[in-house]
C-alpha cells in the first residue's frame, strides 16, 4: 500500500512541475531577495549617517551641458567660460593650481579664473537695482525701512535660498560639499556679474527683479522691519505733518480682569482715527495701534498696492555709480 501511495505522490508532484514548465515560466520574487535586501539595509544603517556625495561624482554627469542648460533654463544667454568662472571659488582655484604645479604643468596655462571680481560687480548691480526698485515701489517708507528691506533681500539666507532653487548647488566648484550659504550667496552675485558681462546690464536688472525682488511677493513688511519705538516715531511724524498730537482711546474691551483680556485701542490725532490695535493689556494694545498707524502712514499695510514685478525700471534712474 505504501508503495502505491508513494508512486501516486510522485506522479501528483510531477504533474504541477511539468505544468509549470509548459506555462511560460512565471518569474516570482525569489525567496532570497527580501532577506538580502534587509541585510544590506541593516549594514547601511550600521555605517551611520553618510556625508551626501556630490551629484557631479555620478557616472552620468557632463559639466558643459549642465552649464548650457543652466543658462537656457532661465532663458538668458551666458558665455559658458564666463559662467564657469562664476561658479569656481577662489579656494578651489588655488587648490587646483597647487595640484597642477605639483604635476609640473607649465606656469603659463595655469590660470584658472575665480569669481571674486564677478561677485563684486554682481553685488554692486543687485544693490543698486534693489534700492531703486524699493524706492519706486514703496515711496512713503522712510529710508531706514527701505534699508532694512534691501538688507533682508541681500542677506545670505535669501540669496542662498534663491541660488539653490536655481539649481547651482551641483555646478559650484568649491572645496567643501554641500557648499555653505556664503559660497552660494557669492555664486549668485557672480552669476549676476557674469550675466551683465555676457548680455548687458538690462538683462541683469531683469534677473535681479525676477529672482530676488520676487521674494517680497505677498510678504508682510512688518516681519522684515518693525519700527522700534512706534509711539515716539508716530509722535514725531504727526508733528512733522502737523496732524495734531496722537492720543490713544479705548474703543472696546472684553474679559477685562481675566487671563484672556482683549483691549481694542484706537489712536486719534485731533479727532481723526490714525490706527487701531488689539492687545492683552492697554500698553500692548496702544503699541499695536501705533504700529498700525505707522503702517497706514507709510503705506506698508497688506492691502497696499501690490509689488509690480513686470515693471521695466529704466537704467537711468538706477544709479550705478
Amino acid at each position, binding site marked *: 500500500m505504501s508503495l502505491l501511495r508513494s508512486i501516486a505522490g510522485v506522479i501528483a508532484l510531477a504533474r504541477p512541475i511539468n505544468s509549470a514548465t509548459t506555462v511560460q515560466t512565471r518569474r516570482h520574487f525569489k525567496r532570497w531577495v527580501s532577506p538580502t535586501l534587509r541585510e544590506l539595509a541593516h549594514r547601511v544603517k550600521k555605517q551611520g549617517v553618510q556625508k551626501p556625495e556630490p551629484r557631479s561624482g555620478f557616472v*552620468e*554627469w557632463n559639466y558643459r551641458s*549642465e552649464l548650457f*542648460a543652466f543658462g537656457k533654463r532661465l532663458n538668458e544667454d551666458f558665455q559658458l567660460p564666463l559662467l564657469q568662472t562664476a561658479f569656481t571659488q577662489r579656494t578651489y582655484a588655488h587648490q587646483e593650481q597647487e595640484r597642477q604645479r605639483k604635476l609640473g604643468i607649465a606656469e603659463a596655462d595655469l590660470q584658472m579664473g575665480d569669481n571674486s571680481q564677478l561677485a563684486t560687480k554682481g553685488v554692486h548691480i543687485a544693490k543698486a537695482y534693489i534700492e531703486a526698485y524699493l524706492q519706486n515701489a514703496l515711496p512713503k517708507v522712510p529710508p531706514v525701512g527701505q534699508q532694512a528691506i534691501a538688507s533682508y533681500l541681500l542677506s545670505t539666507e535669501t540669496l542662498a535660498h534663491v541660488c*539653490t532653487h536655481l539649481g547651482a548647488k551641483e555646478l559650484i566648484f568649491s572645496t567643501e560639499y554641500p557648499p555653505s550659504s556664503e559660497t552660494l550667496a557669492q555664486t549668485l552675485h557672480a552669476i549676476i556679474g557674469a550675466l551683465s558681462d555676457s548680455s548687458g546690464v538690462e538683462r541683469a536688472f531683469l534677473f535681479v527683479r525676477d529672482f530676488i*525682488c520676487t*521674494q517680497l511677493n*505677498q510678504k508682510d513688511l512688518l516681519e522684515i522691519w518693525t519700527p522700534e519705538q512706534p509711539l515716539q516715531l508716530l509722535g514725531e511724524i504727526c508733528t512733522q505733518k502737523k496732524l495734531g498730537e496722537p492720543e490713544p482711546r479705548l474703543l472696546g474691551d472684553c474679559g477685562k480682569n481675566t487671563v484672556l483680556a482683549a483691549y481694542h485701542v484706537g489712536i486719534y490725532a485731533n479727532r481723526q482715527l490714525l490706527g487701531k490695535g488689539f492687545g492683552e493689556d492697554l500698553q500692548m494694545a496702544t503699541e499695536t495701534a501705533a504700529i498700525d498707524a505707522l503702517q497706514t502712514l507709510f503705506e506698508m499695510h497688506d492691502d497696499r498696492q501690490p509689488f509690480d514685478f513686470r515693471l521695466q525700471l529704466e537704467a537711468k534712474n538706477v544709479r550705478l555709480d
Partner: protein
Amino acid sequence: MSNSHLFLKSGFPRAPLQNGVGRYVCQLQRLTLKFCKNNGSSRGMRDFIENHLVDFAKENPGIVVYVKPRRHRAPVLVGEYLNGDREWLSVRNSTQTEISKWIDLLKTQNGSSSSLRLRKMWHTDVPSIQGPWTPFLLRSPDAHNQTYPTSEASQPLDVPQTATEKLIELFKQQQLEADTVLEQKRAE
C-alpha cells in the same frame, strides 16, 4: 519610534521660489533614461530614444538629458528637480507614446507630487484686504461704556402695536389733518 514617516505626508499648495511671479522657470533639471539594449521590456524606451529624444532635447534646452544603457535591467525614468526632489518612474513594457506622456508629466511638475496629499486647493498669504471680521467690528463704540442691564436693551423686540397705541396714533393723525385744514382756510 513613530512610523509617521512611512505614511503619506499632507501639505498645502506651494510654488518653489515664487515661480510664475517674475517669470516661469521649468523646474525639471535633469532627466535620466536607463534601459537595457536588448531586453523586450525596454523596447518602448529604445523606440522613444531613437525617434523622439532628439526633438525633446531640442525643445527643452533647459533640461539635461542622460541616457544610460544597462544590461539586464528594467527601463527607468529618473527626474531630478530644482528643489532637490528625485522622481523614480519604472516604464517597464510601456510604449513610446506612454513614455513621452510620462516625460511630459515630469517636465511640467514642480517636484514629486505623488508623495504629498493636498489639503487645500488654493493658497494666499494676504487673505483679507478690508480687515478680517472681529467681534469689535460692528460694535458701536457707545455700546462699550454701557453698564448692562439697561432698560432700552432689555425691551422685547417686534412687539406688535397694542390697540391703545394704534388709537393714539390715529388721533394724532386726525389732529394733524385738522390743523392743516385750518391753516389752509386761514391762508385763503
